[in-house]
């Protein structure tokens, strides 16, 4: 089974090299999607041996991820793991995250910081928000997801193709994507992972605009529910 690691990155020149070097030990190829960085992110990633997909303009985290999915689909990879470039996600956890996907136990494995320990400590408001969206996912999709905002994920080809084509939320692909996949009967499983606090104190997923995030996420989830189902029959 061929596996690609995708690492969306925006101005992570000081950290991306280490992430790529460690990730390369566990996958066939690492693709760094440079989301219009203004520093040396692309060259540092290339130096570490990654394939660099350089977006000429900053499109946002979701669009950068989708670029990775498109690359994986086009190159024929069987599975994909996605992780952040800031060192928050430990590449040593990749085999554990990939295992249920490779074994066929699930279509998407979600790394949960609440099941795996680690030094992650988010602000109280963020933890409340995550709890809220966790409850919303349970209500709308019938499955308990402890960490709905986790960007540390592994997926098989069916999920890659689903996310590479069609609509994909470009700024905050979190709980709305999970609700969409669960309602389309993809199998999602959580795996405990160690997750560190972002070295810069920032995260692609955390909001400097938390109110906008909540409003946008609620709207996105509402639209997912409304859309004519593209359910797969299993």
């Amino acid at each position, binding site marked *: 089974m061929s596996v690609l690691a995708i690492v969306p990155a925006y101005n992570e020149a000081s950290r991306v090299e280490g992430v790529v070097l460690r990730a390369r030990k566990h996958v066939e190829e690492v693709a760094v999607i440079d989301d219009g960085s203004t520093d040396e992110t692309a060259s540092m990633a290339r130096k570490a041996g990654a394939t660099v997909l350089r977006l000429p*303009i900053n499109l946002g985290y979701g669009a950068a991820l989708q670029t990775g999915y498109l690359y994986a689909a086009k190159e024929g990879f069987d599975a994909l793991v996605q992780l952040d470039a800031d060192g928050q996600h430990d590449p040593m956890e990749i085999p554990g995250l990939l295992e249920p996907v490779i074994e066929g136990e699930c279509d998407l494995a979600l790394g949960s910081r609440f099941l795996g320990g680690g030094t992650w400590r988010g602000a109280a408001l963020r933890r409340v928000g995550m709890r809220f969206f966790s409850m919303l996912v349970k209500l709308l999709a019938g499955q308990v997801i402890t960490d709905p905002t986790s960007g540390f994920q592994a997926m098989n080809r069916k999920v890659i193709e689903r996310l590479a084509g069609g609509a994909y939320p470009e*700024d905050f692909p979190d709980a709305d994507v999970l609700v969409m996949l669960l309602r389309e009967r993809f199998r999602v499983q959580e795996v405990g992972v160690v997750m560190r606090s972002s070295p810069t104190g920032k995260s692609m997923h955390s909001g400097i605009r938390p109110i906008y995030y909540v*409003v946008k996420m609620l*709207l*996105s989830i509402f*639209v997912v529910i409304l859309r004519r189902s593209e359910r797969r029959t299993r």
Partner: protein
Amino acid sequence: MTPRQRVFAVIVAVSLMVLIIDLVRRRKLKEELSILWLLTGFGVVVLSASYRLQLWLTHLIGAASSSTTVFGFAFLFLILISLHYSVRLSVMADQIKTLSQELALMKAKHGEDGHSEG
């Protein structure tokens, strides 16, 4: 504001919100661009439904009547939305320019512009 005017304003605002959500559902309108429209519609509904709020705002801004207040604020929101889109268009114009320049450079590098590289 007469009850008929209030009902009319609420119906128009709710209809607008339903239309916007349907446009987003059919992928004709991006979600992030719909939020301001939905907030505007919601604001008009709240303002139309709450007579006390209308009176307070009417007094605050010195409007002639509460119906002037409701439609005045709706007009103000529309101006702000137009300004928002002007800013977005300006950003997109820069992005299109960047993409076009990158494409031209790539074509020149790969000899696709009809001239081979020296």
